[in-house]
Each structure stands twice: as structure tokens, then as C-alpha cells.
């Protein structure tokens, strides 16, 4: 019986020539041949070599293969993305990356979403150009009812609470889509460095950055009143370390809110209350150092209400649902929330 929902699966193409159908002629040279220094396709160079990713797939490239994986593991529905695609937000240009985003979204819709009612999609946009991003959200959401989410690059020059990004949230909410940040493009291309100390020098240091980056964007969105302006807005974080880092951060942020509330009167609730209403996190990147302590802290927070089960299939650090503690834990942990119910409530188009 397929009762799992997998909220983060990666898909890719075997031959970039598929994008010929989706890219205007004027941009095809740039996409296929690059603008020097190997800048072809969706790639923006990553700062660190990941020896574990080298022989591993970027994503699943065959819909049947993905359906087979889903059937083997009892996954009824999955939300598809591509971990490189959000970096279109970090390209230096505006029209080109907007066209690339549209090309990816159309490819995803036509090559994947139309192939099975069990596939749902996360589209990408160019957040530095909010009007273009809003237009693309509306186009892609209308093109397929299986589009459920918009992925914004975490690598930015300004945090997402700032006023210029509002048209993106307006379009997403209007179309019933959630917003997500997926680790990968921190510090890449047109972006601040990935940490507040400039550049990490090794991959361990770099891999801490998605978690702190997500917290920074979330803090901005909350204190700037984004969730007050858009009470139906949903925000997900994938590969940002799961629930525990956010829970320990809220022990500080909630405290600060009680003292400093008058600085942001448009923020009407405690940060932890806003998290329960608006924020969800993928499970896959959670580091469970000591299982009983981990779940004790999560259960204090009722974190089963804010977690979305994710496998990250077929990437190098994918999780096997048959051994994932998030799916094996007994009461008071509510496995059914993490496994599917939270996702169904969070993504209205999923049902």
C-alpha cells in the first residue's frame, strides 16, 4: 500500500538538447555552447568538489524508473525538482535566466508531470526580477495542476523579507503554490558569500551554510511581516538540516520577540507560532546524533507537525524509507503526519 509522500525527489535530463524545444532561438547558443569558461546549461560552478557525488546521479532521468522506486517503497506521490535549477536566480542577466527558468518549468511539466498523476512539480523562477518571476508562476501554475511549489534560490543579495519580493509571494498564494528554499545555490553566482564570515574553505564548513541561510531568510520574512501580508503563504526548507537547528534557534528568536516586538508590529505572533502555521522542513538532511535525545527535543516541539518526509532520491545522500527513524518512531510521534498528512495539508494541489 502506497501511503508515503516524498516531498523532495530530483529529476534530470539525459540530453540537454531537450531544451531546444523550450528555449528561444536567441538564447540557444549561450545555453548549448556557453559563454566561455564552461558556462553551459544550468551550471553555475559549485565552490567545492563533493567526492561522494561524483559517480552518483544528478537526478532520476526516466519516469518509469522513478515509478518503480516509488512502488518499491510505498510512495504514492512525489514532488520533483532539480537541485541545480534554482541557481537560475543567481545568473547575472535577467531575460536569459528568466527564459531558462521557463524552459526548465516547461520541461518538468511536459516530460514528467504529464507522465503520471503521481508526479508533482517544483518550478523555478528568477527572484531578483520579481515581476518576471510572478508572471512565470502564474503561467506555470495554469499550465499544470500538478505544479505545487516554487523554488527560490537561497543565494541572494537581499533576504526574502524585503519588500521587493512581495509580487512573488502574491503570485504563489494566488495560484495555491508554496514557496521553498532548497540548499545548493548559497554563495553561487550573483550572491552574498554563503556565510557571514565570507568564504568557507572546506566542504564541511560550506555544508553548514544552508541551515544558517534558511534561518536568515526565515527571520527576515517573519520580522518584515510577509506572513501577515500573506496569511496563506507556505514556506518549505529542503536540505537545510531538518527541524532540530530551527527548534534551537526558536529558543532564541521567540525570546527576542517578547522583548523586541515593538520593532515589528506587523509580526503579530511568536516566531514558533508562525513556524507551525507556515513553515515545513524536509527530513532527509537531519543529523540524528543520538536518537532518543533527538526525538525528545522534536517531540517537545511537536515537530511531527512541521516535517515533510523526503528521500532526496536518487542523490548521493538519499534516505531509505525502510530504515528512516522518522518513519519508524512510535507514539507519541505521529508517523502518519510526517509520512503524508502534513504534506497533504501543506500542498493543497497534492490531493
Amino acid at each position: 500500500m502506497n501511503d508515503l509522500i516524498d516531498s523532495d525527489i530530483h529529476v534530470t535530463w539525459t540530453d540537454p538538447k531537450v531544451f531546444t524545444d523550450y528555449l528561444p532561438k536567441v538564447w540557444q547558443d549561450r545555453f548549448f555552447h556557453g559563454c566561455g569558461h564552461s558556462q553551459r546549461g544550468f551550471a553555475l560552478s559549485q565552490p567545492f568538489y563533493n567526492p561522494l557525488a561524483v559517480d552518483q546521479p544528478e537526478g532520476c532521468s526516466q519516469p518509469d524508473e522513478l515509478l518503480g522506486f516509488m512502488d518499491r517503497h510505498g510512495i504514492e506521490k512525489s514532488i520533483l525538482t532539480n537541485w541545480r535549477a534554482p541557481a537560475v536566480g543567481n545568473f547575472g542577466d535577467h531575460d536569459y535566466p528568466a527564459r531558462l527558468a521557463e524552459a526548465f518549468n516547461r520541461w518538468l511539466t511536459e516530460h514528467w508531470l504529464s507522465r503520471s498523476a503521481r508526479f508533482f512539480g517544483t518550478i523555478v523562477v528568477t527572484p531578483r526580477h520579481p515581476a518576471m518571476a510572478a508572471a512565470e508562476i502564474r503561467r506555470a501554475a495554469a499550465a499544470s495542476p500538478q505544479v505545487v511549489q516554487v523554488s527560490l534560490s537561497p543565494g541572494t543579495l537581499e533576504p526574502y523579507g524585503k519588500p521587493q519580493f512581495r509580487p512573488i509571494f502574491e503570485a504563489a498564494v494566488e495560484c495555491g503554490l508554496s514557496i521553498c528554499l532548497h540548499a545548493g545555490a548559497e554563495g553561487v553566482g550573483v550572491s552574498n558569500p554563503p556565510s557571514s564570515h565570507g568564504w568557507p574553505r572546506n566542504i564541511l564548513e560550506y555544508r553548514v551554510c544552508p541551515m544558517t541561510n534558511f534561518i536568515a531568510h526565515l527571520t527576515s520574512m517573519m520580522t518584515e511581516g510577509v506572513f501577515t501580508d500573506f496569511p496563506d503563504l507556505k514556506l518549505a526548507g529542503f536540505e537545510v538540516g531538518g527541524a532540530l537547528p530551527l527548534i534551537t534557534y526558536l529558543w532564541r528568536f521567540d525570546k527576542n520577540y517578547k522583548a523586541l516586538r515593538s520593532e515589528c508590529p506587523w509580526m503579530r505572533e511568536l516566531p514558533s507560532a508562525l513556524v507551525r502555521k507556515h513553515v515545513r522542513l524536509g527530513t532527509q538532511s537531519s543529523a540524528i546524533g543520538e536518537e532518543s535525545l533527538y526525538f525528545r527535543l522534536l517531540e517537545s516541539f511537536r515537530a511531527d507537525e512541521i516535517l515533510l518526509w523526503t528521500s532526496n532520491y536518487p542523490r548521493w545522500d538519499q534516505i531509505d524509507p525502510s530504515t528512516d527513524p522518522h518513519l519508524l518512531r512510535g507514539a507519541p510521534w505521529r508517523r502518519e503526519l510526517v509520512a503524508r498528512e502534513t504534506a497533504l495539508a501543506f500542498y493543497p494541489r497534492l490531493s
Partner: protein
Amino acid sequence: MSPQRHIVCPVSELLPGQRKIVQVGRKSIGVFNVGGEFYALLNHCPHQHAPLCLGPLTGTTEIGEDGRISHAREGEIIRCPWHGWEFDIKSGRSIFNPHRVRTASYAVKVAPLCGGDAMTPPGSEDSDPGVETFPVSVEDAYVILILRREGNQDR
């Protein structure tokens, strides 16, 4: 237990915008004149027990008609001198979570002192207050603190 009445001061000594801190037994209590009305709060922040009533007497912020931040409720808010928690002086309720977080508040009234009333001036429980009569007039009215708990649970 019947309410205890404690003299704070003559009305002329607690003008609008002013406050007095009085010791009543083990309780330290702040008495405030907000726009001519009197209110009293336990001088004790429920957070880390700071002397709440010593903090800034101020307003708070809200969103104006034009959607921009504006100052509001000047003189109605006491902020804890440590972590700045805002409390509505009139109710003792916190601004950030009025339903769950508050400090104790007490009733205050203005009355003349009449013969036969046995009242305890704050800080002088051991002395014989005696009985005094005063002419009944507004100029001779006193601020009287009534120690009966308002609202619910003890802190």
C-alpha cells in the same frame, strides 16, 4: 479575605504621567496615574523577576491607517527595565501575549480619608496609624491602593 486598603499619597502628589512605587508588606507595587485614572501593578516582571515598574513609561507601536509603523498609546505601557517586555498598565497584560502573560494588577481608588477608617500607610504596618479625619474635598483626596487580586492566578 477582605481587601486591605493602603494609602499611597495625596492625589496632588501623583499627577498624570507620574508613578510611585510603594512597599506593602513583602509586595512592591507601582501605582500610576494614566490620564487622570489610577492603576497599580505588581513591581515584578513574570520573566526574570525584574523590578517592572522602574522601566520606561511609554507607548507602543502599531500599524497606522497608511500601513506604516506609528507610535500609539503613549503613557499606557510600562516596559520591563531589563528585557523590555511591554505591559498594558491598565490591565497588567503583556502586549506580546495578552492571554497568557501578565503581571498582577490591583485596584486603586481616590477617596478622602474618613474618621473610623482603619488603614495602613504603606511601610508602616507596625505603627499605630491612628484615626484622622480630613475634610472631604477633591484637593484633599488620597490615592488608595486596594489589595485584592484582580484577574486570576497568583504569580
